[in-house]
């Protein structure tokens, strides 16, 4: 666990380091990625993944909001790894330094965009994340922020999607459990394609910002959240802080 630093300390965390000049790496030549993090009470890392970023109706706005929040780490996986060459060491170090790991992504074919799967396959190593000596992630929180194109009613046994949304997320839930992490109820927006017309983008993005800030400030009530199936922008389980 990383040491807690005063709230005001700004640490430039641009990892992997920008690659200047020559080098064997074909990691996109000169990449300037940077995210600035202000250490809070609970350290939070947001992994954002959307391959069609610029066509997104909701996620790109959520991502921009998340990236602007001080004191959390925001990672755009497709930006850091446009050629999927995920740096396992960097990612494991990132995990060690944070208490809450949140994946933000649109639901593609009842699952994550492919880069998250690649990330899991590589980063959650035996001996690190699981296995008899793999306890590095134990006790941390895993959370998801997902958008789905179908309406809420579709995700029922009588609905078009046949299963509740949580059922589709069970692979991630069980991944968290195997790593000794707590899996918290996901922050969800249904009917994301209709959200702009329905005026839902703004409240959902606003709720997302509140949610992330609450986690950062330890005001998010994980216990209350655990009694819920999914979390929406109205009715966020946010307390007054501890």
């Amino acid at each position, binding site marked *: 666990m990383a040491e807690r630093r005063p709230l005001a300390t700004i640490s430039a965390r641009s990892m992997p380091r920008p690659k200047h000049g020559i080098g064997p790496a074909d990691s*996109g030549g000169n990449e300037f990625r940077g995210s600035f993090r202000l250490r809070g009470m609970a350290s939070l890392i947001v992994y954002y993944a959307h391959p*069609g*970023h610029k066509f*997104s109706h909701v996620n790109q706005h959520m991502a921009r909001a998340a990236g602007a929040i001080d004191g959390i780490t925001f990672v755009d996986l497709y*930006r850091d790894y*446009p050629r999927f060459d995920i740096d396992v060491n960097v990612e494991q170090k990132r995990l060690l330094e944070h208490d809450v790991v949140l994946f933000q992504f649109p639901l593609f074919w009842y699952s994550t965009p492919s880069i998250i799967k690649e990330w899991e396959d590589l980063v959650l190593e035996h001996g690190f994340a699981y296995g008899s000596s793999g306890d590095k992630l134990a006790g941390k929180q895993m959370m998801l922020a997902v958008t789905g194109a179908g309406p809420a009613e579709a995700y029922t046994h009588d*609905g*078009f999607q046949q299963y509740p949304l949580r059922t589709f997320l069970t692979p991630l839930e069980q991944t968290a459990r195997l790593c000794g992490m707590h899996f918290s109820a996901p922050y969800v927006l249904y009917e994301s*394609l209709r959200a702009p017309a329905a005026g839902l983008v703004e409240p959902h993005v606003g709720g997302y910002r509140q949610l992330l800030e609450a986690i950062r400030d330890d005001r998010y009530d994980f216990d209350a959240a655990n009694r819920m199936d999914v979390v929406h922008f109205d009715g966020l389980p946010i307390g007054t802080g501890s």
Partner: protein
Amino acid sequence: MDEFLLLAFLFLVAGVIAVPIASQLGLGSVLGYLIAGIAISPLLQQLHVDVVSVQHFAEFGVVMMLFLVGLELEPRMLWSMRDRLLGLGGLQVAVTAAAITGIAMLLGQPWSIALAVGLVLSLSSTAIVLQTLNEKGLMKSDGGQSSFSVLLFQDIAVIPMLAFIPLLAMPELVDVAATAAHNGGVSDHASLSLVDRLNGWQRALVTAGAIGLVVVGGSYLTRPVFRFIAMARLRELFTAFALLLIIGIALLMIVVGLSPALGTFLAGVVLANSEYRHELESDIDPFKGLLLGLFFITVGAAIRFDLLVENLAGVVAMTLGLIGLKAAVLYALSRAFGIGGAHRWLFTLGLAQAGEFGFVLLSFTVANTVIPVALADQLLLVVTLSMLLTPLLFLMYDKMFAPRFVATQNREADAIDEKGGVIVAGHGRFGGIVNRILLSAGFKTVVLDYQSEHLERLRAFGIRVYFGDAMRPDLLHAAGIEEAKMLVIAIDERESATELVRYVTENHPHVYIVVRAMDRHHVYELWNAGARDIIRETFDSSLRAGRSALQALGVHPYDAERQVKGFVLNDREQMLELASVYDPDIPAHENVEYVEKTKKFLERYEQTMQGNSAAFGSRLDRGWVPPSLDDPETEPATEAAQQKEHRGQ
């Protein structure tokens, strides 16, 4: 001069006609040459050609062949062969000679003649056997290696035999010697020899010195000399030097009374690790081939049919008896030495003839009054006939024995296969990286480059590089193009690269070619020449630069990546279409189809530039564009979903 040309013409015509026919019939080149020799022998008689002296000249091919064999054999391998060389080879000579001596004595010959005959006939034909083994690709097999061990021992054994045979001289024959001496080629040796007048230990010293000179000179002198020659950048100088090297060593050996074949073989072994190995190999190979061919022709031409007809039954019986006896000894030895399967038969049948050293020794025995002329003439016929039958014995092996053991043979051949890897032509900035990647992945590569300075530096790093111009088919052959899986062409001259592609795709279609292109037009040329894996040398770095530029302008890295990927797909497609209509014989601007296609692409390109990126934009973004809301199927509202369920029932 005219006579020489006429003679050369005759030999060449005979060879050029007979050998392809023999090969076509599956008889192998050796039999082809022999038949060619038989065919022209009446003509040669008419012209009063001294076939035997031509034969002595052609025997130098054997010397060259042993040099080449040595080049293929690293000292380490030779050392690991020592048991077979001494054990198998020694026993073969001893047992065969003893058996023949015994039989000759039973037939009523005095012991001295019997022993001389035994020694002469115990030898096999290095020329025929090695040539045939190489031709059939059996040289590296267990049977091939065992055969080679025996042949090498025999070649070495000739020297003590030459020293020993005069001791068997029969006083009654001395009168005949005077007349016989002039047709013995061996007298040349004596005239040159330095060591005749020396006593035993001096002789030993000189011998050791000569061998030391070959080993040390081969190890330390050839490299600077080659570097010196490379400065002239003249191809024929290498050939000249290679010939000089072999002839020089042969002379040295003759002077000190050793076998020239042994000396050049030793030099070959010393140079087997050198980066000039393939260059030497390809320089000497054509000479060796021609001289051996000439040698076989003279063997065929030297058959004295008048004598044969006179004593047909006797000669044939002796020949068959000899082959049978030698085969029996070889078979027994192969059992004792654990040579199994098809290899045992290759060994047994391959070495069952008498050899060209038999000719040398026979004239030597006559000259030294050991064997009467009449008997020697008959034995000469036996030796020749047995050599003539050897290709048939190999044929018998091919048809009767090899098929029975096909499975085991294939497996063993793979295990000792040292070629079959990747040939990298050009080890500069481009080829060097390809080679390093291949090596790091555990593949075996043979690198060809013709910059001498370059090579020695690389050698120091333990990279297997060989000096030579990859453009030369003979060098490609020496580098193992027949067995190679792949050829990487990374040479700087664009025309040469194209030509090389054309040559290899035509002559070795099994070889996969990866080739560097200088620019688009070079791509078309290479495509036209038959290459299908063409890498433009600056294309990938340009793409990365483009991608970097996009990112620096604020484009999301993943979008930049996909943009560039789309560009590549599009570019490749255009390239392929243009390559298919490109014709190197028509200038691009006169090629109507080519011009039309280019125009079309330019139009599309302009549209893309103006932002109508339907050209490759649509393909680029496919999969990430959200479904349209107008389509009820894409996003089922509750009603649509219910309808769907109804339909389903």
